Each structure stands twice: as structure tokens, then as C-alpha cells.
């Protein structure tokens, strides 16, 4: 919450309306459009190839931009000589660290998009060229001479924390340690959460299980590589077309890095081929702008898949210890976890979010979590759906599962007995408001999947998960067109079907059919600032802005009708898409439809529009519970997912198809994370599997139909009860699958991914131990 420290003790503006909207139960009981499943508005464009993604933009005179990347995981850049490249025919610009001024506001981002004193990971950008063709650009890259002084490297989180590890940054002194260290290290910060007395809690326990876990770094795996086209005019007016989850954020950061006014940079978000958090920051965009400024021509940069793996933002890998105590009757007396996350070469691994969410599913009297944010010689991590939570929840839910077996209690019953609910203190501090964990657990227990029989070598896993959700800065426009159709402009890129949800909410408020409403994602010059599409916030916050804008337009349309009827505006109501006279003295007039009012708008006061801008709060947490059946081949260690059911609280599903899609997508990504996906580094500190052939993501043939159950416990902070649903779905799968595989294999799986060699080794080790 950045703020102005000079503005101390400002008066309380009691007249300011709380940004938290109230749930309208009466309206929610009579929805006509909300909850329906119309065809997605972007579907035709995508299946016909008409949709324009990041790499699809072509500008006249456009150059090809390519980036030279460090082959070393850790090296001092002693010098860069680009003179031969610059002299090559067809090369129009070369940029290096010297083309970007130091920037205190975005120092790490700047260092990441173009290495400065050191290259900090294999793939770190060290120079870039813009040329008239790709062959020329590639030739130019080879002519750039970099003099490196190679340094020792470290890529493992536990090794990076050891006293003898190579240190990446001389200015990282661990925060959160008392007394403060005197020497730099790779540990950026330690943080702690919790309440109660865990020692006393463990003393009350009849059973205690303590285990260590590890998870590998994974990539979001979006199909569309990062791509952009930048055009900086001679007058400094600039355009940027890019695939991003947050074009307003891109504008802010790029303008700052290039030292230009925000108003001189217009950013348009292309259609996006997946993001999942990985497109919430910038990688190539400032470089393309710098090249364009130098060349005086548009420049396109499109990453290869190799670059996406090596130089975009995967999620953290982790190393964790969890200890939980429970009584024989299933009361969890204490929980403790230590979570060590590496997030690449710069500060910001989501260890604190992991620690905050680890025990969030439980109402505990005694809980403590510690988090360590660690840097290593890997690419700078970016957000990945519920950043930090899937790993820590995997560790906690694994131990909870084991404890349930130890005391002979059904794992759902154990969770229900300790479940977080309204009024309970969360493990990260505040008490929970309305939430639906209990409802998801009860739905799981009642689901036929939970009682279905299992075959040989099969095991069933269950796990719950949580994500916070938030709102954020949001601004939307709604225009009533002369023909009675409606156009909505939002500033949040649509990565999960939000345009359809916006249209549904506008149609609901206006009382018109869904197909009369169209939503677009406006560029940065058309709307006020919008926070990025992240944090499961768009249907909640952009949706609420659209609802408010619709209501504003309705008020205006009632006013226009009142003018035509020559009655007071207060005597007009809006019902079923029409203005109607209301009250004993209103008169007897035929209703005027939205289309009729729109047709005469030019004569009754001009265009009719609605607008709303605000900072949304009251997002409402979301919980989910997953059930999964796995089958383990004892000969090979291969795991098949036999059946999968996702049960999650959506508050209110505006477009159930998309909600189910989010649930299924989270499960599919979680299956990949749990079973096969991992960044594999060699002893040389180089990534060994930077391609989809070797980085094994699940494909359709790997997956069963993923069943879904939408639980609806209304969020009191939204007029329709909406909760964000995009992130919670990735939280339970790692644990649920690990619990299922552990049951099938007969051995507790404590490291992800559970690839065939790892499962086979665990089975073999268990046999040896048993003998």
C-alpha cells in the first residue's frame, strides 16, 4: 500500500462509500442471464485463426529483434563489443546495458531484462539487435563479443542457503533475522506467521508426524511464447502491441525504464495464448522499445520456446519441513512448517504466500510457519497461479493425510473436524469471513467418486486448498449504441473468458439478451489505470465495475424516458430492459425499451453511457477440495490418473462453463506439476530440458475427464456473490495426487515430480527397508 507519508492525519472522509459492495440476495434469487452458458465471444476468432496474438501484429517497415543471451549461469560481464554487429549491413540497432539508465523503481526488472554487471543465469539477456531480416539479426548476434569472467554457480535452494554457496548479490543482507547478518548471502528474507504456542500444542498430541518435502520448479506452460511489436516515433510517441496479462502495468514499467512519459506510450494487449501469472511482468517489451527508439522503425521480438523456458518466469522450487500433531479423536493440536523457496536470480520467491496459505484450511490454536526467500542462478521467477501455495499445501496436506491413516480416521472427516470456517482465525492472522471449505468437504464426501471402489495398484487421494483473492484498481466503460446494442470496454485482458462474464453481468443489469452485448479489452489510452489480470480478480472487480456502469446507464435511460413522458425521473423504473412509469401519479405510458431510448438518444441529450472506476476490495477467499484416483505401475513407476473430481467454492458462477474450465485447467496443470514437469539443471548450471519434448506437460491423452462440482457460498463483498476462481484450482492437486500415489504405491512420496524413476525408486527403497 504505497502512500504519501506527508499526508499525516488526514481527516476521515466518512462520506466516502466503502468500496466493498454488498451481496444482493434478492437480486441473486432471480437471475435471468447470470448462470447461463452462452457461447464464448472469442471462440470463433480462435478456432478460425482470426484472433490476433502477440506475434500476429505486423507494422510497415518492421524489423526483426533478437536477443543475445548468456551461455553461463553466473559470470561477470567484463566488456561488450558490438561494433562488428553494428557495422553489418541490415543491422539497424544494437542495445546493451548501456542503453538503459539505472532505475531505482524497477531495479530488478531492469537487471533481468538486460544484464548489467553480471549474467545471473543461463539465458540472461546481454544484448539485442534489430535487423531487416532474421538471418541478418542472427548473424549480428554472433558478431557481438562478450568478455565473461565465469563464476561458480548454484541452482538448488538448500545449497544456495549454505554458508559456502556462491553469492549472487553483494547487497543482499537477509531481512527478518535478528541480529541482522553482517555478510551478504543468497537468503533475501525470513518471515514468520502464526499464533498460539506450538510446543504446548505438540505436547497435547497423541500422534506427531514430521516430514521433509521437495518440489521442482515448473513453468506455466502457456502455448503462446512472449511476443511484442514496438514502435517509437521520431516525436517520441510510442506504441506497443504485446501479449500480456496487464498492459497498464507494462506501460508503467516500460515508460519508467525508457524514461518517457506514460502518456506517450500506448499499449495494446493482444489476444493471449495463456498466461497463468507468467505474463504479469515484462521481459522483451522494454528491449523492443529501446531497439525501436534507436532504429527509428518498428521492432518485433518473439521468443522461441527455448527462450521461454530459459528466460521467462517459472515458479519457485521448494524444500520444506512440516510437523503436525493430532489427538486420537482427530483434533489437530499444532502445526509447524518451514518453507524454503528459490525464485531465481532476484528477490521475490513467493515463500511468504506459501507460509501464509500452508495451514489456511485449518482452524488451529497453535500454528507457526517460517518462510525463506532465496536467490539462485536461475531465471527470475514470475507468478504462477496461487503463487507459492501449491507447494506448501502439498507438504501440509500430505502430512494430514498420513495422520488420518495413523489414527484410523477418514481423511475428509479429519479435515472437517479441523476446517477453517467463518469466524475462525486464519493461520496467517485475520479471521475468516464467509467461506465455503466445509461445503466443499461435505460435497466431496457425498460425491459418488469418493465411495467408488478401487482396483489393484490404485489409490485415492484427497486434499483441500485455499487462495486469498483480491480486487484492485479497475475502470470500465459501457456504451449504449444507437441500435440498442451495448459495448463494454474493460482494461483487464481476457485470459479465462472474462469478456463473456462481463457481457452476462451487463445483460443481467440492463435486462437485455446476452448477444446484444459485446465486450472489448481497451488499450491504455482509452481507460484509466487497471491492475493486471491476476489474483483471480477480473470477474470480481471488472465485473463489479461493469455492474455499476450498467446501473449508471440505467439511471440515465430512466431520465431520458422521464423527459419524453414529461414526468419526474423518480417516477420511472427499469424492468426487463425497459423504462416503465411507476407510482400512482406517474401516468399511463407504454414502456420504452433500451433500443427505443437509444434510438432517440441524440435528441434527448446525446449518447448514453455508463462508467465506473474504483479500487475493489472484499474479494472473498476461495477454498477447494479435490479427489483423485491414481494407478501406479509397480514395474515401471508410471502413474496414470484414473479419475479426478474438483469441488470448489465459486461464490456465484457467472458463466458456469468458464468456472468449470478454470477448475479443470487447474487440475490439469497440477497433474503435470505433480507427475512430470520439472526444470532439470546439469552440474554446469544449464537447463537440460528447455523444450516440450523433454519438459513433459500432460496432453489430452494423459488425462481423464475432470469432473467438477461448483459450490456457491456467496461472497458478501460482491452484489452477485462472486469469488475469484482462477487460482484455488491449482492448490490441491499436488497434494491430492501425492496422497493417491502414496496410497497406490504403499510408500509416502515426498518429492515432486513423481516421475516414473522417482516412484520406482521409492517403491524399491521401501521394499529394501521392509526387508
Amino acid at each position, binding site marked *: 500500500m504505497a*502512500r504519501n507519508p506527508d499526508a499525516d492525519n488526514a481527516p476521515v472522509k466518512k462520506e466516502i462509500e466503502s468500496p466493498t459492495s454488498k451481496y444482493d440476495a434478492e437480486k441473486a434469487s432471480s437471475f435471468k442471464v447470470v448462470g447461463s452458458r452462452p457461447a464464448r465471444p472469442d471462440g470463433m476468432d480462435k478456432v478460425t485463426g482470426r484472433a490476433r496474438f502477440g506475434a500476429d501484429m505486423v507494422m510497415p517497415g518492421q524489423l526483426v529483434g533478437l536477443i543475445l543471451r548468456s551461455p553461463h549461469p553466473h559470470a561477470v560481464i567484463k566488456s561488450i563489443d558490438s561494433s562488428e554487429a553494428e557495422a553489418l549491413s541490415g543491422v539497424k540497432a544494437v542495445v546493451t546495458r548501456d542503453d538503459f539508465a539505472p532505475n531505482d523503481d524497477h531495479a530488478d526488472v531492469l537487471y533481468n531484462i538486460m544484464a548489467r554487471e553480471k549474467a545471473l543465469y543461463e539465458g540472461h539477456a546481454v544484448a539485442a539487435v534489430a535487423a531487416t531480416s532474421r538471418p541478418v539479426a542472427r548473424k549480428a548476434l554472433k558478431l557481438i563479443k562478450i568478455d565473461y569472467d565465469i563464476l561458480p554457480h548454484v541452482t538448488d535452494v538448500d545449497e544456495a542457503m549454505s554458508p559456502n554457496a556462491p553469492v549472487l548479490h553483494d547487497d543482499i543482507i537477509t531481512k527478518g533475522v535478528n541480529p541482522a547478518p553482517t555478510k551478504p548471502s543468497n537468503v533475501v528474507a525470513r518471515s514468520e506467521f502464526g499464533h498460539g504456542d506450538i510446543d504446548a500444542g505438540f505436547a497435547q498430541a497423541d500422534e506427531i508426524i514430521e516430514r521433509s518435502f521437495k518440489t521442482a520448479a515448473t513453468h506455466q506452460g502457456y502455448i503462446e511464447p512472449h511476443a511484442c511489436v514496438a514502435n517509437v516515433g521520431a516525436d517520441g510517441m510510442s506504441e506497443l502491441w504485446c501479449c500480456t496479462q496487464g498492459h497498464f502495468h507494462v506501460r508503467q514499467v516500460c515508460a519508467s525504464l525508457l524514461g518517457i512519459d506514460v502518456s506517450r506510450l500506448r499499449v495494446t494487449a493482444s489476444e493471449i495464448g495463456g498466461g497463468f501469472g507468467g505474463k504479469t511482468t515484462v521481459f522483451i517489451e522494454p528491449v523492443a522499445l529501446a531497439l525501436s527508439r534507436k532504429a527509428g522503425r518498428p521492432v518485433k521480438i518473439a521468443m522461441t520456446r527455448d527462450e521461454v523456458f530459459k528466460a521467462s518466469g517459472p515458479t519457485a522450487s521448494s524444500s520444506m519441513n512440516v510437523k503436525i500433531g493430532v489427538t486420537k479423536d482427530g483434533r489437530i493440536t499444532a502445526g509447524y512448517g518451514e518453507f524454503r523457496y528459490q525464485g531465481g536470480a532476484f528477490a521475490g520467491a513467493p515463500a511468504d504466500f506459501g507460509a501464509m496459505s500452508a495451514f489456511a484450511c485449518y482452524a488451529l490454536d497453535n500454528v507457526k510457519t517460517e518462510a525463506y526467500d532465496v536467490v539462485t542462478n536461475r531465471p527470475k521467477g514470475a507468478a504462477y497461479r496461487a503463487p507459492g501455495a501449491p507447494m506448501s499445501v502439498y507438504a501440509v496436506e500430505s502430512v494430514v493425510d498420513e495422520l488420518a491413516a495413523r489414527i484410523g480416521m477418514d481423511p475428509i472427516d479429519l479435515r472437517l473436524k479441523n476446517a477453517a470456517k467463518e469466524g475462525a482465525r486464519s493461520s496467517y492472522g485475520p479471521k475468516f469471513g464467509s467461506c465455503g471449505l466445509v461445503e466443499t468437504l461435505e460435497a466431496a464426501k457425498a460425491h459418488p467418486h469418493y465411495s467408488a471402489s478401487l482396483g489393484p495398484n490404485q489409490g485415492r487421494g484427497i486434499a483441500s486448498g485455499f487462495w486469498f483473492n483480491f480486487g484492485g484498481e479497475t475502470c470500465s466503460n459501457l456504451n449504449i449504441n444507437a441500435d440498442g446494442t451495448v459495448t463494454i470496454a474493460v482494461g483487464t485482458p481476457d485470459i479465462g473468458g472474462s469478456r463473456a462474464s462481463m457481457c452476462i453481468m451487463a445483460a443481467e443489469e440492463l435486462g437485455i439478451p446476452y448477444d446484444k452485448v459485446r465486450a472489448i479489452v481497451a488499450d491504455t489510452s482509452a481507460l484509466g489505470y487497471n491492475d493486471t489480470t491476476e489474483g483471480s480478480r477480473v470477474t470480481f472487480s471488472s465485473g463489479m465495475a461493469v455492474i455499476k456502469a450498467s446501473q449508471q446507464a440505467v439511471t440515465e435511460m430512466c431520465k431520458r424516458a422521464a423527459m419524453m413522458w414529461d414526468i419526474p425521473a423518480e417516477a420511472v423504473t427499469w424492468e426487463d430492459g425497459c423504462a416503465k412509469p411507476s407510482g400512482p401519479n406517474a401516468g399511463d405510458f407504454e414502456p420504452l425499451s433500451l433500443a427505443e431510448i437509444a434510438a432517440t438518444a441524440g435528441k434527448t441529450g446525446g449518447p448514453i453511457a455508463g462508467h465506473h472506476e474504483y479500487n475493489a476490495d472484499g474479494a472473498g477467499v476461495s477454498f477447494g477440495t479435490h479427489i483423485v484416483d491414481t494407478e501406479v505401475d509397480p514395474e515401471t513407476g508410471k502413474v496414470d490418473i484414473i479419475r479426478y473430481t474438483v469441488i470448489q467454492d465459486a461464490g456465484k458462477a457467472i458463466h458456469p462453463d468458464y468456472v468449470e474450465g478454470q477448475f479443470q485447467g487447474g487440475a490439469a496443470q497440477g497433474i503435470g506439476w505433480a507427475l512430470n514437469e520439472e526444470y532439470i539443471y546439469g552440474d554446469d548450471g544449464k537447463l537440460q530440458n528447455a523444450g516440450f519434448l523433454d519438459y513433459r506437460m500432460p496432453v489430452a491423452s494423459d488425462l481423464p475427464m475432470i469432473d467438477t462440482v461448483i459450490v456457491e457460498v456467496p461472497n458478501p463483498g460482491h452484489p452477485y456473490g462472486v469469488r475469484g476462481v*482462477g487460482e484455488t484450482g491449482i492448490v490441491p492437486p499436488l497434494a491430492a495426487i501425492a496422497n493417491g500415489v502414496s496410497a497406490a504405491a504403499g510408500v509416502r512420496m515426498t518429492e515432486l515430480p513423481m516421475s516414473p524413476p522417482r516412484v520406482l525408486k521409492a517403491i524399491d527403497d521401501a521394499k529394501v527397508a521392509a526387508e
Partner: protein
Amino acid sequence: MVQVTLSGTIQQAAGGISSLEIEAKNIRQLLNGVEKQCPDLKPELEKGIAVAINGTIYRDDWFQPIPEDSEVFLIPRLAGG
């Protein structure tokens, strides 16, 4: 008077102080009061934090009123994917 609980990196940055009492009627006054009592927290406050009032988390809302006897937490600023 608002009793505010510090957690996570915020508590560590405040030298381990777990709670403060601040005279504040809204979030802006609260944050200014926190900074006065714990100057070491200034970098954290400038970087951005979240404030939970009676269980509702606010990221950026200076003028959100803090009712009497509210339960208030300072927690890390939430992000997402």
C-alpha cells in the same frame, strides 16, 4: 486507539514487534502512525502492504474507516497469478 498486529516480513522488519497501538480512524492514519512508531518499517510501507480489518483485506484504500475495537493486521501485500 487501534491495536494492530504485525505479521510476516513486516513483523521481522519491525525488529520482532508483534503489535502496536495506534490512534487512527482510517488506514492512512494507521499507516502514518505505524511509520512514526517504527521508522524501520518505512521501506516495507513504501513497497506496499495490505491491511486486514475485521477479516477483510484491503490493498490500497487509505480512507477505509477503522471501526472501534476492530481487529487489524498488517500483512504482506497480496499478489496473484
